[in-house]
């Protein structure tokens, strides 16, 4: 115990030095702690974003996006091929169809054409002189009908949530003439559960009314995929397939496998692509934090190292005396280590306090500096909705949504302060103390006791 007692006593031999060393050390430990906190916080945010984006790949027909482009649609065979690929845990098929308000259905769209809709219609029908004559006075927007094999796959429906506000869901595998009607469309046409409407000359029963939270989808109809395929005369055809992968790590493998099997027939966009954009700024913060953490620990070690070298040189004679009266190197080194440990412990207590106090403000600064690009990107991507049930654009919009979501969540990022951090802080302090004692210990062992015999 005498060794530790003397070590501790020695730590206060020069009070000005002790205070300044403690303070400088506290700054470097606070810095290390803050960077460690930000590393942990950012990592947990990255994991969260990754898991919220999900493990999906969107497969769309090559060259076709919604109702635009050209080529061949996907088929049920494509879907079967994909579902057999390793690590694919499920697929959701969707087909889109457009119900012209004039010819295909008795429903009236809840979306006003506006200048955008009119322009789209004009360009689409420029060869149709009859239609052109009727426009713009009598013109109404077409209604989007989406056939899906899985109502729970909100990604495939291009919405973030599906709230059934009245009625029930339908059986996705049936081919009955049933439909879920968007809230706005229902209001516009005075439809309720059990009402019917006409589409493709058939009477369709409303089983439920949904609210997806966006006006575009709320103006649409959801139906079982087979029903839409049969009624819209697109039997066996599929607009897009959402592939669910067993884990986020297998996404790129599965994406490659799909490309290999289906070649140029399909275009794929994986959620990973969207995640990467979102998390790239987080990854940057992570890297900054990691380097700063290492830097802060090194700085702390160097501070204590230089201090201990200074102290050992100063007490060279005293070390010689201790050796002369029978102290072993180990005992003297232990005494100096206990001194440096106490200095670092005091520094770390102060450092932990500073770290707790400043972790959130510093995290905010870091994030504000590196996410401005992300949030503006989110605004652009998430903004315009577009005409038509454009399955292809949905990934764009999805990415935008996630970017937006990530942007929001970044602003609300709070350092994960838990009390384990104190242990990490103390751990860092002990590592610093030990690293800082190695060279001084070597100097101690080299001091010859005979040196004290030299004339004073």
């Amino acid at each position, binding site marked *: *115990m*005498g060794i530790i007692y*003397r070590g501790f*006593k*020695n730590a206060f*031999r020069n009070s000005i030095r002790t205070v300044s060393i403690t303070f400088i050390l506290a700054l470097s430990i606070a810095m290390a702690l803050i960077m460690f906190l930000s590393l942990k916080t950012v990592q947990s945010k990255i994991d969260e974003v990754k898991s919220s984006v999900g493990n999906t790949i969107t497969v769309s027909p090559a060259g076709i996006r919604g109702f635009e482009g050209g080529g061949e649609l996907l088929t049920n065979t494509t879907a079967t091929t994909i579902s057999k690929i390793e690590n694919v845990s499920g697929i959701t098929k969707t087909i889109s169809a457009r119900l012209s308000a004039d010819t295909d259905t008795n429903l009236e769209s809840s979306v006003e054409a506006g200048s955008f809709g009119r322009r789209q219609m004009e360009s689409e029908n420029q060869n149709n002189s009859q239609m052109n004559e009727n426009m713009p006075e009598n013109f109404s927007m077409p209604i989007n009908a989406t056939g899906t094999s899985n109502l729970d796959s909100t990604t495939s429906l291009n919405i973030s949530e599906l709230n059934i506000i009245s009625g029930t869901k339908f059986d996705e595998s049936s081919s009955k003439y049933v439909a879920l009607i968007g809230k706005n469309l229902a209001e516009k046409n005075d439809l309720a559960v059990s009402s019917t409407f006409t589409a493709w000359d058939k009477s369709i029963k409303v089983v439920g009314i949904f609210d997806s939270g966006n006006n575009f989808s709320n103006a649409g109809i959801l139906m079982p995929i087979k029903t839409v395929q049969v009624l819209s005369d697109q039997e066996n055809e599929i607009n897009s397939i959402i592939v669910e992968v067993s884990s986020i790590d297998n996404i790129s493998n599965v994406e490659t496998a799909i490309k290999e099997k289906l070649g140029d027939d399909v275009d794929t966009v994986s959620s990973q692509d969207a995640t990467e954009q979102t998390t790239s700024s987080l990854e940057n913060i992570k890297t900054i934090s990691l380097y700063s953490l290492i830097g802060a620990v090194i700085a702390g070690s160097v501070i204590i190292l230089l201090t201990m070298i200074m102290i050992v040189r100063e007490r060279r*004679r*005293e070390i010689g*005396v*201790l*050796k*002369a*009266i*029978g*102290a*072993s190197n180990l*005992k003297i080194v232990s005494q100096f280590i206990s001194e440096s440990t106490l200095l670092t412990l005091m520094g770390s207590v102060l450092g932990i306090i500073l770290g707790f106090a400043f972790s959130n403000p510093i995290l905010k600064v870091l994030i504000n500096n590196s996410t401005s690009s992300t949030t503006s990107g989110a605004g652009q991507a998430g903004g315009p909705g577009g005409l038509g049930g454009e399955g292809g654009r949905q990934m764009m919009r999805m990415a935008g949504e996630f970017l937006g979501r990530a942007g929001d969540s970044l602003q609300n990022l709070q350092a994960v302060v838990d009390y384990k951090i104190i242990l990490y802080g103390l751990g860092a302090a002990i590592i610093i103390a030990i690293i800082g004692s190695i060279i001084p210990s070597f100097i101690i062992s080299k001091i*010859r*006791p*005979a040196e*004290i*015999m*030299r*004339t*004073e």
Partner: protein
Amino acid sequence: MLKVENLTKQFKSGDYTVDAVDKISFYLPTGVFAAILGKSGSGKSTLLSLLGALDKPTEGNIQVNLQEISKMKDSQLIKYRRDKIGFIFQSYNLIPNLTALENVCLPMEFAGVKKIARMKRAVELLDQVGITLDKQDRIPSRLSGGEQQRVAIARALANKPALILADEPTGNLDSKTAKIIIDLLKNLAKSKKTTIIAVTHDKEVAKQAKIVLELKDGKLVK
């Protein structure tokens, strides 16, 4: 008893080899107070550090109570210094931030003596050298030179050494205090049956010694 045979210590300085101690042999019985006299550079301090195992001789043997120290390993030398040797220095060399009592306890702590036992012995030793209880809790800077040297003597005695080596023990003291310290050492040699060797250039100190060894250029001249 102390037996020194053919003791030589050479230092290299550049291309020259200096014989700081040159083939010295002598014998001291137990319990004598001996003095080593000589001018500065005569090799007295080197001889003392060889005797105290602070340095290793180039050649020759040192025997303390039939124990041969020139052949000891480093770890044995630490024990030898701790258990058999007591050092007294011209500038006292007490640890400045420890009290008189703690300074005396130090060698006993290194020797593994229990805390209560070493405290008790330290108080006794300080009492014997004339440091009263009220001064035992003072740090060295709050003691006079003579008092500091008394504390150093108590520290040297702590582990009941066979040999006490004193390097100019009165060098920093006025003549009156110096006489008191020398008397103290003389009496301790007798009462504790410890051989005391004091390096000095003070003829007055030498007069008190039973045996005087005089060194010149590393050689024993008397």
